[in-house]
């Protein structure tokens, strides 16, 4: 029988920040909080000013330079060793083979409150703004 739990906040009993979930196979348990993405964002820098399509836990952007966007978090991370991913399309949304492979993106300058996503265009040998940039963070919130 289906059941629905309606709450606004989940907390562990022994430790408020630790709720365990049973694995899909039933052989292990793992922290619910630690497995959740703590930030995700899809945004454009095509106009030169970062603009989010949608996001979680992002308070603001700062345009550090062409292809370099500082993403500031609403809730800080616990340390600067978080795992952050970035991806970037080309300068248009056209799904041409060259466009799909045009850019690479990485996080640099990580702090507990922000990270700089740098987008590189190898064919031009320079940082570049792009229409579609994606980023996510896994790690522990403060």
């Amino acid at each position, binding site marked *: 029988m289906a059941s*629905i739990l309606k709450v606004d906040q989940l907390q562990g009993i022994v430790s408020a920040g630790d709720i365990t979930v049973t*694995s899909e*196979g039933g052989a292990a348990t793992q922290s619910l909080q630690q497995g959740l993405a703590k930030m995700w964002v899809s945004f454009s820098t095509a106009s030169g000013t970062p603009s989010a399509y949608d996001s979680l836990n992002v308070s603001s952007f700062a345009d550090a330079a062409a292809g370099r966007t500082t993403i500031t978090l609403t809730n800080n991370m616990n*340390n600067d060793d978080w795992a952050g991913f970035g991806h970037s399309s080309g300068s248009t949304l056209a799904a041409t083979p060259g466009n799909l492979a045009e850019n690479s993106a990485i996080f640099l300058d990580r702090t507990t409150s922000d990270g700089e996503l740098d987008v590189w265009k190898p064919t031009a040998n320079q940082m570049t703004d792009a229409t579609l940039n994606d980023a996510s963070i896994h790690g522990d919130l403060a």
Partner: protein
Amino acid sequence: MASELRVTTIANNAGTESVNTTYVINGSAKAWGHFEGSDATLDDSLNTTSLTDNSTGSFSPQLINSLANTNYASSTNCANTSNTASNSGSKAQTYATGSFNIVTTQNGADADVNDTIYTAHGDLA
């Protein structure tokens, strides 16, 4: 005292947002980590007991709880310190239920690269 709650859906109190618990459990990362290739030491991680330094530019996170199969989705990324994303790269390969291999390169050659990160999504055993 530990307690267990079994539900199909979790919703906010207003009932305006909800998610099936399948997405909560299956959609959560089952492992993630951050390490510097230069010292092959985990700076922070989830569900990773150790990091094996196989050779230059080759590392294998060893998982605490194994995945249910070898078809899980792993992502990896790395960054050198020159603020250019062009000359470093990484990939995940050789998927086993208890570990996988990360290869990092710089300027087209295998190299130990700093700020190497990974995640694994899939089903735990």
